[in-house]
């Protein structure tokens, strides 16, 4: 059995795990332990449940069956299973985008709608990009036209998803050549389901290419629409200070936690929590006020736009309830444990589900409707306040919480570097070209109880920083770094190499840039495209000295993200291997052959230090190919000699 400190690198989590164990409660880590050993066929990806001639399993040792009843080999089965994960992941992100597009459409049609366009400038910029006359006075008409175009991306049958035109030309050509330019978001997902039906696509690489196509429709379609239209509706994020970790919960206030993904709900809860009448009600119940905190990506959304503190990441959702001071856990969609229902029953916490798409055992369902958004949000907040006097257990709130700075976007990131007067990507490109900055890395993704919670994210980020690699983070990885203080500008003094330190000092930025929720990885795609457009670092994203990683990933969304990032030209290291290792040729393709097509590839490495060094090797190889100098200052992990780098890169 693992000890608490082996389960998590976060002291608040360790404390709460002790508390949970003392109270005899089982949480995700415990359930994971009971699940051991987990089925090797599933881990290797060679179990097929596509039709009822099966289930079929391939014996990886070669003595039992080497093909399914239909004749599908391990390669075919693993490829089919994998792209079905992409379909689900892309569907999740894209349905989120669709909901936001729908909300914008509603806001544009109905003046009395609780949602309003809050970012005129972003709307006008988007309108220009989409070919809508963006200079008209009637903002609602522009919003309507933009929303219709965004909405149409989902059902589009031909042509290409509109935001793919943001990618560098070279990258778009690669997609054309491979035949994977996404046509419409829904179409690509449907085609995955068709192709993986019994007896349709049985060429592993051809199957994977459709997966790539759907993933691109996610990254450059669904996710990007979600990000862009959220900015229009709820305002583009700006730099904000806030705090992170379970210590933000206040035993003397009404604590409401929003958990899930879509900002349509959390934005309204934020508004309702500031309602004077409700604040007065809270005080009348003996509470100091209403304290809002977030978990998972919805937390990142309201942090970026309102500075609402982060209560924790994915694996802390149960622990938040265990503190005994959460009046309501309000959830919408994605990454919400069904275990929360039975757990909340043991405390006074109201577990409130809001989405018609996501109902949970033992949850109180207060259905959220965009047309009555504020009213329903107030109802939810009121329910939480009225629950304040019902606390059953002695509060057990860990003291840990850390300062952070968040709110970086593709648009504002370089106002920070270039100043308001001359916002430009030039300073970033120059820093990389001079060697002051070795490169840029994105560390993203979930938590997974198979890995020590947060350890992968933190260790990897620190190793990258020490080697003068600027780190961009989103999602649960961002929350992990926030809790460890890596998102504060002071972190540069402790963790960053000399070159990165100079930059952080000059502009006052933290060395790790929080770029939002998991759909906001689309922001990183835009940043990369802008870096290529700025010039000096090659012709395509594949030429840039950048790398990506998801050290603790677990969800199907992460698979979709991995694929659109790789297909956009980025070398990506995963802490948990994709479930394809029972298909050696397919693994080889994903970690090698796919690079010839798109310029990016996967690598699997569980050790975060090793993984970080693989990323740095890749960055160095790209620097060498661009004839850029060695890092300006001495770095702990020095660049390897030319031939070694080439060997490492191939």
């Amino acid at each position: 059995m693992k000890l608490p400190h082996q389960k998590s690198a976060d002291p608040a989590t360790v404390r709460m795990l002790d508390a949970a164990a003392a109270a005899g409660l089982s949480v995700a880590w415990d359930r994971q332990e009971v699940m051991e050993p987990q089925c090797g066929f599933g881990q290797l990806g060679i179990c097929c449940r596509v039709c009822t001639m099966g289930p079929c399993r391939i014996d990886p040792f070669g003595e039992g069956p080497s093909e399914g009843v239909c004749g599908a080999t391990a390669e075919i089965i693993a490829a089919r299973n994998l792209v079905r994960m992409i379909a689900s992941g892309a569907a999740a992100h894209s349905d989120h985008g669709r909901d936001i597009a729908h909300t914008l459409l509603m806001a544009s049609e109905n003046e009395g709608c609780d949602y309003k366009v809050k970012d005129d400038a972003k709307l006008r910029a988007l309108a220009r990009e989409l070919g809508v006359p963006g200079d008209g006075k009637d903002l609602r008409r522009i919003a309507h036209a933009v929303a219709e175009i965004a909405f149409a991306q989902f059902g589009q049958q031909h042509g290409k998803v509109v935001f793919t035109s943001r990618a560098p030309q070279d990258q778009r050509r690669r997609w054309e050549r491979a035949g994977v330019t996404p046509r419409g978001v829904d179409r690509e997902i449907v085609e995955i389901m068709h192709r993986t039906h019994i007896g349709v696509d049985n060429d592993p690489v051809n199957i994977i290419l459709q997966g790539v196509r759907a993933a691109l429709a996610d990254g450059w379609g669904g996710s990007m629409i979600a990000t862009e239209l959220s900015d229009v509706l709820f305002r583009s994020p700006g730099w904000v200070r806030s705090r992170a970790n379970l210590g933000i919960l206040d035993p003397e206030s009404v604590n409401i936690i929003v958990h899930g993904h879509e900002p349509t709900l959390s934005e309204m809860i934020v508004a309702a929590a500031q309602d004077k009448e409700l604040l007065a009600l809270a005080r009348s119940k003996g509470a100091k006020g209403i304290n809002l905190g977030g978990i998972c990506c919805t937390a990142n959304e309201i942090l970026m736009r309102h500075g609402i503190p982060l209560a924790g990441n994915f694996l802390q959702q149960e622990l938040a309830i265990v503190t005994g001071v959460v009046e309501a856990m309000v959830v919408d969609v994605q990454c919400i444990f069904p275990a929360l229902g039975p757990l909340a029953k043991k405390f006074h916490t109201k577990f409130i589900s809001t989405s018609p798409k996501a109902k949970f055992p033992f949850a109180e369902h207060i259905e959220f409707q965009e047309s009555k958004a504020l009213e329903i949000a107030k109802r939810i907040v009121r329910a939480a306040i009225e629950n304040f006097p019902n606390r059953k257990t002695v509060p057990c709130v860990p003291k840990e919480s850390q300062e952070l700075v968040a709110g970086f976007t593709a648009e504002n990131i370089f106002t920070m570097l270039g100043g308001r007067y001359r916002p430009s990507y030039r300073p970033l490109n120059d820093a990389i070209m001079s060697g002051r900055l070795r490169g840029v890395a994105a560390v993203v993704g979930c938590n997974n109880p198979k890995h020590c919670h947060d350890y992968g994210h933190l260790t990897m980020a620190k190793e990258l920083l020490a080697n003068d690699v600027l780190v961009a983070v989103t999602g649960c990885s961002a929350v992990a770094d926030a809790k460890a203080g890596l998102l504060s500008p002071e972190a540069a003094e402790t963790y960053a190499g000399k070159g990165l330190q100079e930059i952080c000092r000059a502009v006052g930025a933290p060395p790790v840039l929080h770029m939002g929720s998991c759909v906001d990885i689309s922001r990183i795609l835009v940043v990369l495209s802008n870096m290529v457009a700025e010039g000096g670092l090659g012709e395509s994203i594949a030429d840039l000295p950048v790398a990506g990683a998801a050290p603790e990933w677990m969800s199907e969304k992460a698979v979709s993200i991995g694929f659109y990032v790789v297909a956009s030209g980025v070398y990506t290291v995963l802490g948990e291997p994709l479930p394809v290792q029972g298909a050696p040729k397919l693994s080889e393709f994903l970690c090698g052959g796919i690079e010839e097509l798109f310029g990016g590839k996967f690598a699997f490495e569980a050790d975060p230090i090793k993984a970080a060094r693989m990323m740095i090797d890749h960055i160095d190889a790209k620097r060498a190919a661009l004839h850029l100098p060695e890092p300006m200052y001495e770095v702990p992990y020095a660049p390897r000699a030319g031939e070694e780098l080439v060997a490492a890169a191939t």
Partner: protein
Amino acid sequence: MKKVYFDSQKCLGCHSCEFACAVEHSASKDPRKAHLEESKPIARRNVQLVEGMCLTVACRHCDPAPCVEACIAGAMNKDAQTGEVTCDTDKCVGCWMCVMVCPFDAVKPGEIYTIKCDMCPDRDETRACVQACPTSALFEATAEEFRRIAQERKQRAGQVELKR
């Protein structure tokens, strides 16, 4: 007697043996119905993770068998001819001495009497777990055959090392 042996290098931890064992000891013997039966069928096998390796554990019909030696009621017997360790349910008083002394944790306390691998008495041929194993990690062999297989593997491993 042919015993069920286990090759830890081939086990993928899929729990198929556990499942098949429970079904074999159900009333219906139907994998789709067994889990619905009033008294839930109990597997005599258990897949565990030991030091990063999957092990499927069931009665090994030891010789000498500690459970037989410990049984105060004389219910546990080792068949002199087949070597099989059986529990005479008429004699078993449920004192669970056998459960306590089993070095493999392969004997379970049932509701009334001891539950352990009974070598699938309703089957003529291959045992349920062996048949269910998709990687042949479980296989039937006599002690003699097993020794030979193990010896061969040792030699092969030695050769590989020599080649390196």
